[in-house]
């Protein structure tokens, strides 16, 4: 067992008491039962054959006044829009997702945009995204991604979309939007970087200069703690964040650096679901009593990281790089009359999950060993966006 596995095992023991699982009010369906089987039956080691080929995950969310309440909401994120004169492929996909969300029947109660609307934080890109999203007439809420933020440190984004963290209650569920991007370390002042140079480093997923920028921060942790303190411990909570609230793969900021503190704050609550972007891929994880679901991008899929893919994740298919609409999409989340929410990945292709290893975004990489890049450490190099 390596160091990461050992630490995760210890955390699991600490955070998840005997017999505890995410969501005290969870209704065990065939699908979640299968996830439970993996957790308890094989020490967290997933086997493809144990999962059904489905595009949804079911879990019970909430009841308002003791009665089941049905509603839908939708998630769109990671559009990475460039100005139209650079390319329109990402615009086309964002427009398609927006039109499909608007056409949902019954209509979604709200749309959450999960960040990275822009590629390089350019006001032209953010304005373009804002115009596209205006086609959605239902309520919209927003959290930022790092690509939206680091050109002007959030000025344009906040002028369009408001505060980066917020909370509201809706039909028996407390929703929280977290800002996991704005508290990165200052890597630009000492090197006298221009705003574009700063953005260039931030926009490079596998760059090493921006460091561990993803985090919730002490002040926001206190805010989260206070925000949840008035909410019953067994009532459903859904937390939206751009980055996952657990440690998946730090070199690509597939985490928040203070995820342990986040879990401590959430520890008293038995029904918490984190829905996150940034990773551009199908992901599912349970740590302690928190379950996490990763959302698709509309722009392009990231490969699964070389290590840290949660054992509970059933990996998505390998995307065809020749088809710009492959491996991407958005999510419809539906609370049905039986008080279950289904997370439906809408991937614009026949199959979302892979069955055979040869078709899997994870299984295809069994012989692959990767190493971090080095050239961005050299003085005067600032990335592709100078």
């Amino acid at each position, binding site marked *: 067992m390596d160091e990461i596995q050992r630490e995760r095992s210890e955390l699991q023991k600490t955070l998840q008491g005997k017999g505890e699982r995410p969501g005290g009010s969870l209704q065990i369906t065939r699908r979640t039962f299968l996830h439970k089987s993996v957790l308890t039956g094989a020490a967290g080691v997933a086997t493809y054959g144990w999962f059904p080929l489905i595009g949804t995950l079911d879990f019970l969310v909430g009841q308002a006044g003791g009665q089941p309440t049905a509603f839908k909401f939708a998630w769109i994120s990671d559009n990475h829009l460039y100005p139209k004169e650079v390319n329109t492929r990402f615009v086309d996909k964002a427009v398609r997702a927006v039109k499909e969300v608007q056409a949902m029947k019954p209509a979604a109660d709200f749309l959450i945009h999960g960040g990275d609307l822009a590629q390089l934080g350019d006001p032209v890109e953010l304005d373009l995204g804002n115009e596209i999203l205006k086609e959605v007439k239902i309520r919209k809420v927003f959290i930022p991604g790092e690509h939206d933020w680091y050109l002007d440190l959030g000025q344009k984004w906040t002028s369009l979309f408001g505060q980066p963290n917020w909370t509201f209650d809706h039909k028996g569920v407390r929703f929280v939007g977290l800002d996991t991007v704005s508290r990165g370390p200052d890597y630009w002042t000492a090197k006298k970087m221009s705003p574009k140079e700063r953005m260039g480093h931030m926009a490079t997923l596998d760059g090493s200069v921006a460091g561990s920028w993803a985090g919730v921060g002490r002040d926001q942790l206190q805010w989260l703690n206070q925000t949840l303190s008035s909410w019953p411990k067994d009532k459903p909570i859904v937390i939206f964040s751009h980055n996952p609230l657990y440690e998946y793969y730090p070199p690509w900021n597939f985490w928040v650096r203070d995820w342990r503190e986040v879990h401590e704050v959430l520890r008293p609550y038995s029904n918490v679901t984190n829905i996150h972007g940034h990773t551009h891929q199908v992901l599912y994880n349970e740590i302690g009593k928190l379950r996490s679901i990763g959302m698709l991008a509309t722009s392009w899929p990231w490969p699964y990281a070389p290590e840290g893919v949660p054992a509970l994740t059933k990996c998505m298919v390998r995307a*065809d790089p020749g088809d710009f609409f492959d491996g991407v999409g958005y999510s419809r989340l539906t609370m049905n009359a039986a008080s279950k929410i289904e997370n439906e990945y809408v991937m614009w292709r026949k199959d979302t999950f892979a069955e055979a290893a040869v078709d899997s975004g994870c299984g295809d990489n069994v012989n692959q060993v*990767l190493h971090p890049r080095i*050239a961005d450490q050299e003085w005067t190099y600032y990335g592709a966006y100078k």
Partner: protein
Amino acid sequence: MKTIRIGLIAAGVLVGSLLIVSSARAHKDKHTPQQLKAFEEVFMEQVRIGDLLFHGDDATAKKLNVQLSRTGMACAMCHPFGSDNHPHEFPKFQEQIGQFATLRDMINWCIEKPNEGVKIDSDSPAMKALEAYIYWSNRGSKLDPGRH
């Protein structure tokens, strides 16, 4: 900065002279640590150039007179750390190309199709540098030619 440049030039001259001597005496004498260091430096210089090209550095692309993308996309945006390049699996039948292909064929396919750039000569300095970076970032992977 001037001092750094002079230092780099001096180092380049030293490496060059070591390599000339090495070429003349290839495999005739035992390798010296200086020779091995010089070989490594030649390789790593290509890795760095390939890394910059792979991550969309405009200055390096201009220097080598190549246009690898016209969409704003860089290779690393789909292949962070060189992932999913699978250099250890080439040559193989490549589905997108529809024929038996080398890594260099696939690099050019990505330049032309997803990136909408201009295909580069398969023996060009840019291609060799890209190849060097991709192999270096995937070092230690299990050689498995032909695997799909």
